[in-house]
């Protein structure tokens, strides 16, 4: 079990510091390189989202809660199709919170990835990449704050 909260001004310039905190923990867990890249991408997308949209035109803080645990943190109702074996292992959950405008990034429509380069629009890819690479993600608006969580299995046992 590990738990750490980082409160940081939500500006793009602080991305490196956020990633350094996440990567430090992933190193300690012996996280495989590929998984680490997927997690870094997810953290980057979510943090940059907050930095860009949550408080515009002002700025504000983001809380980044990094947790690892031996029990699967995916909510019961979202475990459909998961076996006993799937639920085992070491898990990571990162929750980012901000007190900015209520915004649920999961409501954003997925981009049409079958379109050609000329037809493809720039953008809309970030959250889609996160959805595809994480084991689960969920959003809630509570106590005047946005909370977005990503969950990823770090190792099988």
């Amino acid at each position, binding site marked *: 079990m590990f738990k750490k909260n980082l409160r940081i001004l939500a500006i*793009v*310039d602080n*991305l*490196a510091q956020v990633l350094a905190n996440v990567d430090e923990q992933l190193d300690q867990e012996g996280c495989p*390189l*590929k998984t680490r*890249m997927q997690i*870094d*991408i997810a953290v*980057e*997308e979510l943090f*940059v989202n907050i930095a860009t949209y949550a408080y515009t035109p002002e700025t504000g803080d983001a809380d980044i809660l990094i947790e690892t645990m031996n029990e699967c943190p995916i909510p019961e109702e979202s475990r459909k199709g998961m076996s006993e074996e799937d639920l085992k292992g070491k898990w990571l959950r990162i929750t980012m919170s901000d007190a900015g405008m209520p915004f649920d990034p999961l409501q954003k429509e997925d981009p049409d*990835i*079958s*379109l*050609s*380069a*000329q037809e*493809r629009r*720039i*953008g809309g*890819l*970030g959250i*889609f*990449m996160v959805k*595809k*690479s994480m084991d689960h993600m969920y959003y809630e608006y509570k106590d005047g704050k946005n909370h977005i969580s990503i969950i990823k299995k770090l190792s099988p046992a």
Partner: protein
Amino acid sequence: MLNIEKQINGSEAIVRLEGRLDTTTAPELENELKSFMDSVTSLVFDFEKLEYISSAGLRVLLTAQKFMSKQGSMKLINVKEDVNEIFEVTGFSDILTIE
């Protein structure tokens, strides 16, 4: 951090990237490309040393691909497996030429 090395021979350009193409470094690449893209018909990205790409990096590649489709060709070489997987997931492997 991103290291950009470009080599231009007449109308052909090779751009070698080393490090991370993310929100903080993507604008550097975008500016670099803008400075010469008008004058080339062949653009090759060597990704042998590219470790990481996020959606900000993908956006720059898509913009470059759209531009180069009109006036020539663009391709990516030596793409690492992890980076390639990002292209697969996002459908970019179908719109970019990856060798």
